[in-house]
């Protein structure tokens, strides 16, 4: 149930999707893996929207060359606390009613199940495919929705993966990009982070259309959007079993 203060706080969005949807947001548990360029706007907008429980995972500390895009941090945060911890302090100022848990070590095969077992939705705000594949495997196995985005320069891509319904990350991107120091401007990360938060809000409330089986790309340089329908790979080593296509 929403209290009187919450009804006032979320009044303008309750006008869009109603009280029941707002209650769903309050009950939702969402993990944001990576609290950098994408993770900053994702966590800010989900905190503002009233997601009940956020789990922030990031082991790094803010560095000077992060500040062009990682808008949760400022000069006073450099090389002090881990991003997850520093982010929690800022987000609590924005909305003290949100439960925020942090994890300031690296997520890996050994700890992922313990960390993410009780969340409803996982948001990929990572900067490497090695860990993304790990999230994907976990989410397919645990049947949890995974919101994926990646950005570079003025470009980005986003899709919402629902195991058993959509292609998984491995179906879509079977070969990882080479590891490089990637160019990026804050507005691109901001744009795609907001889209990821939007996917979470729609998925939780059931209001609006998600990017289910769709890969959306946007070129902020030329203001050009594209969206293509994508299908699962019937022989995907990660998800084909979840469609009942492969039996052992």
């Amino acid at each position: 149930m929403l209290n009187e203060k919450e009804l006032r706080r979320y009044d303008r969005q309750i006008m869009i999707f109603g009280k029941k949807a707002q209650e769903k947001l309050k009950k939702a548990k969402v993990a944001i893996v990576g609290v950098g360029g994408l993770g900053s706007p994702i966590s800010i907008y989900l905190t503002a929207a009233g997601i009940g429980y956020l789990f922030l995972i990031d082991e790094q500390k803010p560095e000077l060359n992060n500040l062009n895009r990682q808008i949760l941090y400022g000069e006073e945060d450099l090389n002090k606390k881990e991003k997850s911890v520093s982010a929690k302090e800022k987000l609590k100022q924005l909305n003290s009613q949100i439960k925020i848990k942090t994890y300031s070590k690296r997520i890996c095969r050994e700890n992922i199940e313990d960390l993410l077992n009780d969340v409803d939705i996982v948001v990929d705000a990572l900067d490497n495919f090695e860990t993304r594949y790990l999230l994907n495997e976990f989410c397919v196995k645990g049947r949890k929705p995974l919101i994926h985005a990646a950005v570079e320069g003025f470009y980005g891509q986003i899709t919402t993966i629902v195991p058993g319904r959509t292609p998984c990350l491995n179906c879509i991107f079977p070969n990882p990009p080479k590891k490089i120091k990637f160019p990026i401007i804050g507005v691109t990360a901001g744009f795609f982070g907001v889209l990821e938060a939007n996917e979470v809000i729609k998925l939780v409330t059931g209001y609006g259309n998600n990017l289910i089986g769709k890969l959306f790309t946007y070129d902020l340089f030329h203001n050009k959007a594209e969206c293509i329908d994508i299908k699962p790979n019937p022989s995907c080593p990660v998800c084909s079993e979840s469609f009942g296509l492969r039996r052992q």
Partner: protein
Amino acid sequence: MKIKIKFFTFFGNLCGVDKAELYLPHGATVKEALEKTAQDFPKLKKWLPRYAWVFINGNYVELRTQLKNDDEISLFPPIAGG
């Protein structure tokens, strides 16, 4: 046969166009189509055939997959930042 090819995000920028057509012999594979694309658009050589994400009509494909007339290849540059 005629194959359509669409360049997404910065591939379009590199090529100066966002789509093109390829004319290939019957039974040509994805790999051959990508090699031809790299010849027509030399700036893509660095990525093709191995380092791009490729779909045919929205479906997963392998390099040895054979193409059909009028197939549409979507070519995404691999991006990983966050």
